């Protein structure tokens, strides 16, 4: 799992540019499912036959990033955000473009941190002129954070664990499941960070009976943290509510019962901010019962997100248990 996480998180693939991560996941799964398709939006759908109920899992492949909007006369790059990035998290961070070009984010002079907005930041790729810059990057190019993977033992740190850890859970579950009792549509979605877009269109095309998203959730276990119940190491989080979704009671029941019956460590989650693919799935067509299995994660939307491998393992076990449980709603 550590190796899978390391490889998944090292691929730069912000929303709208998921090609490289999709190719990687396709290669990982080709021997573990009955069919692999890519739809119009670019979602990867891994289908595995198993039973009557159509079960959709969703983990998003995209990460937050930045997009170059202008190249100024000195060769500095102005940019905008892809997904939720707070300006104060960007200062002095390193970014990597898809063609390998690297840069660092600088800021205009400000008197007060409150004045720091994206418009006051720029990327410096070390070019000595605008012409030189234009040989390396173009307006419209996309970059992601560049930060190495850290193995801290039980816990690991990397950028884009949101939601590469969800992808890892789904990949590992597909490799482990031996007797699926439902038809599994494991969707690796695109453009979640810019509005759950891939999940919306994937669910429309699939029209499943039930949908479960695999994503990360915040924790309340760091100094003077927001008052959240979720903690690293307490198991897979069964989501009750976030801004995009109130988990269908039957789905919450199902996941809770499966966790309890199988002795899978779990905790309950209410997140007063944020949303997941399940938010889009449950409102598709005439409605789809949906829920989320979350991996608790510290330092979300920073280059150094942290998860606990016990929680990741618990999530994999819960997904497999769901896949192997004949679901009737």
């Amino acid at each position, binding site marked *: 799992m550590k190796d899978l996480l390391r490889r998944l998180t090292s691929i730069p693939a912000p929303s709208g540019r998921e090609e490289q991560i999709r190719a990687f996941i396709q290669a990982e799964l080709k021997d573990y499912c009955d069919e692999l398709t890519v739809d119009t939006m670019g979602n990867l759908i891994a289908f595995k036959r198993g039973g009557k109920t159509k079960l959709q899992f969703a983990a998003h492949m995209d990460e937050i990033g930045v997009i170059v909007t*202008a190249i100024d*006369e000195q060769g500095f790059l102005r940019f*905008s955000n892809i997904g939720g990035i707070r300006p104060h998290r960007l200062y002095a961070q390193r970014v990597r473009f898809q063609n390998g070009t690297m840069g660092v984010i600088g800021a205009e002079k400000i008197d007060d941190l409150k004045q720091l907005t994206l*418009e006051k930041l720029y990327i410096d790729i070390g070019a000595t002129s605008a012409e030189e810059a234009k040989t390396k990057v173009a307006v*419209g190019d996309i970059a992601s954070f560049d930060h190495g993977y850290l193995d801290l033992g039980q816990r690991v740190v990397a950028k884009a664990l949101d939601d590469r850890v969800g992808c890892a859970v789904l990949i590992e579950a597909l490799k482990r499941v031996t007797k699926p009792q439902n038809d599994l549509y494991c969707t690796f979605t695109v453009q979640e960070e810019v509005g759950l877009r891939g999940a919306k*269109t994937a669910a429309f095309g699939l029209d499943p009976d039930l949908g479960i998203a695999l994503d990360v959730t915040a924790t309340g276990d760091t100094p003077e943290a927001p008052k959240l119940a979720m903690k690293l190491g307490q198991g897979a989080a069964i989501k009750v509510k976030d801004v995009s979704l109130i988990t269908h009671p039957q789905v919450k029941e199902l996941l809770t019962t499966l966790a309890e019956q199988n002795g899978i460590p779990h905790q309950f989650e209410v997140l007063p901010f944020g949303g997941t693919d399940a938010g889009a799935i449950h409102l598709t067509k005439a409605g789809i019962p949906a829920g989320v299995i979350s991996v608790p994660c510290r330092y979300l939307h920073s280059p150094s997100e942290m998860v606990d491998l016990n929680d990741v393992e618990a999530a994999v076990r819960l997904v497999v248990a769901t896949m192997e449980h004949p679901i009737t709603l």
Partner: protein
Amino acid sequence: MLLKELSELNGVSSGETAVRHFIRNRIQGRVDRIQTDRLGNLIARCDQGKKGPLVMLSAHMDEVGLMVVGIDASGLLKIKTIGGIDERVLISKRVFVGPQRIPGVIGAKPIHLQEREERERPVKTTGLFVDIGATDRNDAEKDVKIGDLIAFDVQAGPFGDGLFKGKALDDRAGCAVLMNLMENEYDLPLAYAFTVQEEVGLRGATVAAYGLNPDLALVVETTSAGDVPPLKKHQASTRLGAGPAISFMDRSVIVKPALIERLVAVAEEAGIPYQFRESASGGTEAGVINQTRSGIPVAVISIPCRYIHSPVGVLNLDDFAQTIKLIDAFLRNIAQRGLPV
């Protein structure tokens, strides 16, 4: 002049009737079928006997404006904005109220009667009203009613060096582009959608796209040109005179790289000037179309326009002409080579 006629029609979001009738009358005979749907979108199909992917071209008929929400005892009309208007542009403007185009003015307290500090703060819409010259409420109610839509009174026309000014260029300019394209024949099934209520939430495009379910969509819009002081060069987004603007991303959509590449290739091959929209903010109908059903590939081509969402917008007539050329070349290219993958 088509652009002038379209600009001077009143069609504030949800009250697009005059624009719809005008366009319908003009395009009859040029298209195979015309229909309106339940929201009032005008859809013209040029698809008889045509094979290939269905391409939807979309431009919205509605403009930002105001609405009568109450009538004072004194006969003055209380107003609210429809669509995103910077309230500061409203004061001291001439308007037309309702389908009968009753003339009015947006008044506010004269300078003589103000404290100095008042002038530092914009007047909020709650402090603004429209005066149609009525003596009291009963008198006002003879000509206007609650719910009437209010548009700016602006004479459109060319000015300066090849520029054009008028209200509602967002997005009557787009509508004009579509109407021009209809003069040509393409070897491709086409659906021209003149949509409603874009400015209040991309409402018309949502249902039009669902109903048409095209293989590809092209949204023809106007976009902010910030080539005016005090904005710095990198903040301009687009410039007048540099050609139609191709979007790579905005808050509603990320355009597929393959689509952008095709547009650029078409432009370069045909020698059509173009620029990139150097901004990722704002939103267009492309977003709702892109996320319709199982997903529809969309691109956005915009005519740069200064002072959007104000009573007087300004565009470059050459940019307008080049936009038509670019889309024309693009459609011919799609007919020949199929959709970009």
